[in-house]
Protein backbone atom coordinates (compact mmCIF):
# COMPACT_ATOMS: atom_id res chain seq x y z
CA UNK A 1 0.00 0.00 0.00
CA UNK A 2 1.53 3.39 -0.98
CA UNK A 3 2.20 6.06 1.64
CA UNK A 4 -0.68 8.32 0.56
CA UNK A 5 -3.15 5.43 0.82
CA UNK A 6 -1.92 4.80 4.35
CA UNK A 7 -2.71 8.43 5.18
CA UNK A 8 -6.15 8.24 3.55
CA UNK A 9 -7.19 4.93 5.13
CA UNK A 10 -5.82 5.64 8.61
CA UNK A 11 -7.47 9.08 8.59
CA UNK A 12 -10.70 7.38 7.47
CA UNK A 13 -10.42 4.97 10.41
CA UNK A 14 -10.05 7.92 12.81
CA UNK A 15 -13.22 9.50 11.37
CA UNK A 16 -15.01 6.15 11.69
CA UNK A 17 -14.06 5.97 15.37
CA UNK A 18 -15.18 9.58 15.98
CA UNK A 19 -18.39 9.20 13.97
CA UNK A 20 -19.34 5.98 15.76
CA UNK A 21 -18.59 7.56 19.14
CA UNK A 22 -20.90 10.50 18.39
CA UNK A 23 -23.56 8.05 17.16
CA UNK A 24 -23.19 5.94 20.30
CA UNK A 25 -23.68 8.99 22.55
CA UNK A 26 -26.78 10.15 20.65
CA UNK A 27 -28.38 6.69 20.56
CA UNK A 28 -27.73 6.19 24.28
CA UNK A 29 -29.26 9.62 24.90
CA UNK A 30 -32.30 8.67 22.80
CA UNK A 31 -32.90 5.64 25.01
CA UNK A 32 -31.67 6.91 28.38
CA UNK A 33 -31.44 10.72 28.28
CA UNK A 34 -28.09 12.28 29.26
CA UNK A 35 -28.21 15.87 27.93
CA UNK A 36 -30.20 17.42 25.06
CA UNK A 37 -27.06 19.19 23.77
CA UNK A 38 -25.86 15.80 22.49
CA UNK A 39 -28.18 16.19 19.47
CA UNK A 40 -25.79 18.92 18.28
CA UNK A 41 -23.42 16.08 17.36
CA UNK A 42 -25.74 14.86 14.57
CA UNK A 43 -24.21 16.97 11.72
CA UNK A 44 -20.68 15.91 12.75
CA UNK A 45 -21.83 12.25 12.99
CA UNK A 46 -23.12 12.40 9.39
CA UNK A 47 -20.18 14.44 8.02
CA UNK A 48 -17.54 12.20 9.61
CA UNK A 49 -19.16 8.94 8.49
CA UNK A 50 -20.17 9.92 4.95
CA UNK A 51 -17.20 12.04 3.87
CA UNK A 52 -14.53 11.42 6.51
CA UNK A 53 -14.93 7.65 6.54
CA UNK A 54 -16.68 6.36 3.41
CA UNK A 55 -15.46 8.82 0.78
CA UNK A 56 -11.94 9.05 2.21
CA UNK A 57 -11.62 5.25 2.37
CA UNK A 58 -12.76 5.02 -1.26
CA UNK A 59 -10.13 7.59 -2.30
CA UNK A 60 -7.39 5.79 -0.36
CA UNK A 61 -8.20 2.36 -1.76
CA UNK A 62 -8.66 3.74 -5.29
CA UNK A 63 -5.23 5.44 -5.15
CA UNK A 64 -3.74 2.10 -4.10
CA UNK A 65 -5.56 -0.25 -6.47
CA UNK A 66 -6.45 1.57 -9.72
CA UNK A 67 -4.35 0.59 -12.76
CA UNK A 68 -0.89 2.20 -12.89
CA UNK A 69 1.33 3.49 -15.70
CA UNK A 70 4.01 0.78 -15.44
CA UNK A 71 5.03 1.53 -11.85
CA UNK A 72 3.79 5.15 -11.59
CA UNK A 73 0.45 6.29 -10.26
CA UNK A 74 0.11 9.39 -12.43
CA UNK A 75 -0.24 12.86 -10.96
CA UNK A 76 0.31 12.10 -7.28
CA UNK A 77 0.29 15.79 -6.33
CA UNK A 78 -3.39 16.03 -7.28
CA UNK A 79 -4.19 13.09 -5.00
CA UNK A 80 -2.27 14.73 -2.11
CA UNK A 81 -4.12 17.99 -2.82
CA UNK A 82 -7.43 16.11 -2.66
CA UNK A 83 -6.44 14.68 0.74
CA UNK A 84 -5.63 18.12 2.15
CA UNK A 85 -8.73 19.81 0.66
CA UNK A 86 -11.09 17.05 1.78
CA UNK A 87 -9.92 17.10 5.39
CA UNK A 88 -9.80 20.89 5.61
CA UNK A 89 -13.33 20.97 4.19
CA UNK A 90 -14.67 18.35 6.60
CA UNK A 91 -13.36 20.27 9.63
CA UNK A 92 -14.63 23.65 8.40
CA UNK A 93 -18.11 22.20 7.81
CA UNK A 94 -18.09 20.40 11.17
CA UNK A 95 -16.87 23.38 13.18
CA UNK A 96 -19.10 25.86 11.33
CA UNK A 97 -21.73 26.05 14.12
CA UNK A 98 -18.99 26.97 16.62
CA UNK A 99 -17.05 29.29 14.31
CA UNK A 100 -20.11 31.42 13.54
CA UNK A 101 -22.42 30.66 10.63
CA UNK A 102 -22.33 34.20 9.24
CA UNK A 103 -18.58 33.97 8.64
CA UNK A 104 -19.23 31.44 5.87
CA UNK A 105 -16.93 28.70 7.17
CA UNK A 106 -19.42 25.97 6.33
CA UNK A 107 -19.86 27.25 2.79
CA UNK A 108 -16.07 27.47 2.39
CA UNK A 109 -15.76 23.93 3.68
CA UNK A 110 -18.25 22.64 1.11
CA UNK A 111 -16.26 24.39 -1.65
CA UNK A 112 -13.06 22.73 -0.42
CA UNK A 113 -14.79 19.32 -0.39
CA UNK A 114 -16.01 19.85 -3.96
CA UNK A 115 -12.51 20.89 -5.05
CA UNK A 116 -11.12 17.76 -3.36
CA UNK A 117 -13.45 15.59 -5.40
CA UNK A 118 -12.47 17.41 -8.60
CA UNK A 119 -8.76 17.06 -7.78
CA UNK A 120 -9.15 13.33 -7.10
CA UNK A 121 -11.24 12.81 -10.23
CA UNK A 122 -8.52 14.55 -12.30
CA UNK A 123 -5.93 12.27 -10.72
CA UNK A 124 -7.95 9.07 -11.20
CA UNK A 125 -9.43 9.74 -14.66
CA UNK A 126 -6.35 8.70 -16.74
CA UNK A 127 -5.90 5.60 -14.55
CA UNK A 128 -9.31 4.23 -15.59
CA UNK A 129 -7.97 2.49 -18.69
CA UNK A 130 -7.68 -0.87 -20.40
CA UNK A 131 -4.78 -3.18 -19.47
CA UNK A 132 -1.47 -2.10 -20.99
CA UNK A 133 -2.72 1.32 -22.14
Amino acid sequence: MPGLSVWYVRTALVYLALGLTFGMLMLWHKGMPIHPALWALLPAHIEFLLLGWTLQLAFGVAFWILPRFRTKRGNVRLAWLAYALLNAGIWLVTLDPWLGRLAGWGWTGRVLEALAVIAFALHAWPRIKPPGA
Partner: protein
Amino acid sequence: MPPLTRLFIKTALVYLALALLAGLARSLPPSEALPAFFAYLTPVYFHLFMAGWVLQLIIGVGYWMFPKHTREQPRGNEALAWAAYGLLNAGLALRVVAEPLHSLQPHPAWGWALALSAVLQWLGGMAFVANAWPRIKEH
Protein backbone atom coordinates in the same frame (compact mmCIF):
# COMPACT_ATOMS: atom_id res chain seq x y z
CA MET B 1 -12.00 -15.46 0.55
CA PRO B 2 -11.81 -16.13 4.32
CA PRO B 3 -14.91 -17.50 6.09
CA LEU B 4 -15.38 -14.32 8.13
CA THR B 5 -15.38 -12.21 4.96
CA ARG B 6 -18.06 -14.44 3.44
CA LEU B 7 -20.13 -14.07 6.60
CA PHE B 8 -19.73 -10.26 6.63
CA ILE B 9 -20.66 -9.91 2.96
CA LYS B 10 -23.64 -12.28 3.07
CA THR B 11 -24.91 -10.57 6.23
CA ALA B 12 -24.43 -7.20 4.51
CA LEU B 13 -26.56 -8.40 1.59
CA VAL B 14 -29.33 -9.43 3.99
CA TYR B 15 -29.18 -5.97 5.60
CA LEU B 16 -29.36 -4.34 2.18
CA ALA B 17 -32.58 -6.21 1.45
CA LEU B 18 -33.95 -5.33 4.92
CA ALA B 19 -32.98 -1.67 4.41
CA LEU B 20 -34.92 -1.48 1.17
CA LEU B 21 -37.92 -3.16 2.80
CA ALA B 22 -37.74 -0.67 5.69
CA GLY B 23 -37.51 2.14 3.13
CA LEU B 24 -40.63 0.81 1.46
CA ALA B 25 -42.49 0.41 4.75
CA ARG B 26 -41.70 3.97 5.90
CA SER B 27 -42.89 5.44 2.61
CA LEU B 28 -46.30 3.73 2.60
CA PRO B 29 -49.25 6.08 3.14
CA PRO B 30 -50.61 5.95 6.70
CA SER B 31 -53.28 3.31 7.12
CA GLU B 32 -54.94 1.55 10.04
CA ALA B 33 -54.12 -1.75 8.37
CA LEU B 34 -50.37 -1.13 8.81
CA PRO B 35 -48.41 -1.61 12.07
CA ALA B 36 -48.00 1.74 13.83
CA PHE B 37 -44.22 1.40 14.14
CA PHE B 38 -43.87 1.69 10.35
CA ALA B 39 -44.10 5.46 10.86
CA TYR B 40 -40.91 5.40 12.98
CA LEU B 41 -38.63 3.43 10.68
CA THR B 42 -36.60 6.32 9.21
CA PRO B 43 -33.52 6.05 11.49
CA VAL B 44 -33.67 2.25 11.22
CA TYR B 45 -33.76 2.52 7.43
CA PHE B 46 -30.65 4.76 7.33
CA HIS B 47 -28.70 2.56 9.73
CA LEU B 48 -29.68 -0.73 8.11
CA PHE B 49 -28.26 0.76 4.93
CA MET B 50 -25.13 2.53 6.25
CA ALA B 51 -24.13 0.27 9.16
CA GLY B 52 -25.69 -3.02 8.05
CA TRP B 53 -24.81 -2.82 4.36
CA VAL B 54 -22.06 -0.25 3.64
CA LEU B 55 -19.96 -0.57 6.81
CA GLN B 56 -20.29 -4.33 7.00
CA LEU B 57 -19.38 -4.79 3.32
CA ILE B 58 -16.31 -2.59 3.81
CA ILE B 59 -15.25 -4.50 6.93
CA GLY B 60 -15.65 -7.84 5.16
CA VAL B 61 -13.68 -6.81 2.08
CA GLY B 62 -11.08 -4.96 4.17
CA TYR B 63 -10.49 -8.04 6.34
CA TRP B 64 -9.82 -9.96 3.14
CA MET B 65 -7.86 -7.40 1.07
CA PHE B 66 -5.92 -5.11 3.42
CA PRO B 67 -2.16 -5.76 3.55
CA LYS B 68 -1.16 -8.78 5.63
CA HIS B 69 -0.32 -8.01 9.26
CA THR B 70 2.39 -10.63 9.84
CA ARG B 71 3.20 -14.06 8.41
CA GLU B 72 1.85 -15.68 11.60
CA GLN B 73 -1.25 -13.46 11.83
CA PRO B 74 -1.93 -12.33 8.25
CA ARG B 75 -5.33 -10.85 9.09
CA GLY B 76 -4.46 -9.54 12.54
CA ASN B 77 -6.25 -10.77 15.64
CA GLU B 78 -8.93 -13.16 14.37
CA ALA B 79 -10.77 -13.20 17.69
CA LEU B 80 -11.05 -9.40 17.54
CA ALA B 81 -12.41 -9.61 13.99
CA TRP B 82 -15.05 -12.16 15.04
CA ALA B 83 -15.90 -9.96 18.03
CA ALA B 84 -16.44 -7.04 15.64
CA TYR B 85 -18.91 -9.15 13.66
CA GLY B 86 -20.81 -10.37 16.73
CA LEU B 87 -20.95 -7.01 18.52
CA LEU B 88 -21.90 -4.98 15.44
CA ASN B 89 -24.69 -7.33 14.43
CA ALA B 90 -26.05 -7.88 17.94
CA GLY B 91 -26.16 -4.09 18.43
CA LEU B 92 -27.76 -3.38 15.08
CA ALA B 93 -30.41 -6.13 15.45
CA LEU B 94 -31.29 -4.82 18.90
CA ARG B 95 -31.58 -1.30 17.52
CA VAL B 96 -33.84 -2.37 14.66
CA VAL B 97 -36.35 -3.74 17.18
CA ALA B 98 -35.96 -1.28 20.05
CA GLU B 99 -35.79 2.08 18.25
CA PRO B 100 -39.21 2.09 16.53
CA LEU B 101 -40.86 0.55 19.57
CA HIS B 102 -39.27 3.15 21.87
CA SER B 103 -40.42 5.95 19.55
CA LEU B 104 -43.92 4.47 19.41
CA GLN B 105 -44.31 3.92 23.15
CA PRO B 106 -41.36 5.00 25.34
CA HIS B 107 -40.57 2.49 28.07
CA PRO B 108 -37.45 2.07 30.24
CA ALA B 109 -36.95 -1.44 28.87
CA TRP B 110 -36.76 -0.15 25.29
CA GLY B 111 -34.64 2.77 26.47
CA TRP B 112 -32.08 0.48 28.05
CA ALA B 113 -32.19 -1.77 24.98
CA LEU B 114 -31.31 1.26 22.85
CA ALA B 115 -28.46 2.22 25.19
CA LEU B 116 -27.16 -1.35 25.09
CA SER B 117 -27.41 -1.44 21.28
CA ALA B 118 -25.42 1.82 21.13
CA VAL B 119 -22.59 0.35 23.20
CA LEU B 120 -22.56 -2.97 21.30
CA GLN B 121 -22.35 -1.27 17.90
CA TRP B 122 -19.64 1.10 19.14
CA LEU B 123 -17.58 -1.77 20.55
CA GLY B 124 -17.96 -3.66 17.26
CA GLY B 125 -16.73 -0.64 15.30
CA MET B 126 -13.80 -0.10 17.66
CA ALA B 127 -12.83 -3.77 17.41
CA PHE B 128 -12.67 -3.39 13.62
CA VAL B 129 -10.61 -0.17 13.85
CA ALA B 130 -8.18 -1.75 16.33
CA ASN B 131 -7.69 -4.82 14.15
CA ALA B 132 -7.43 -2.92 10.84
CA TRP B 133 -5.05 -0.18 12.05
CA PRO B 134 -1.79 -2.21 12.13
CA ARG B 135 -2.58 -3.68 8.68
CA ILE B 136 -2.70 -0.22 7.06
CA LYS B 137 1.00 0.13 6.34
CA GLU B 138 3.36 1.04 3.55
CA HIS B 139 5.27 -1.63 1.67
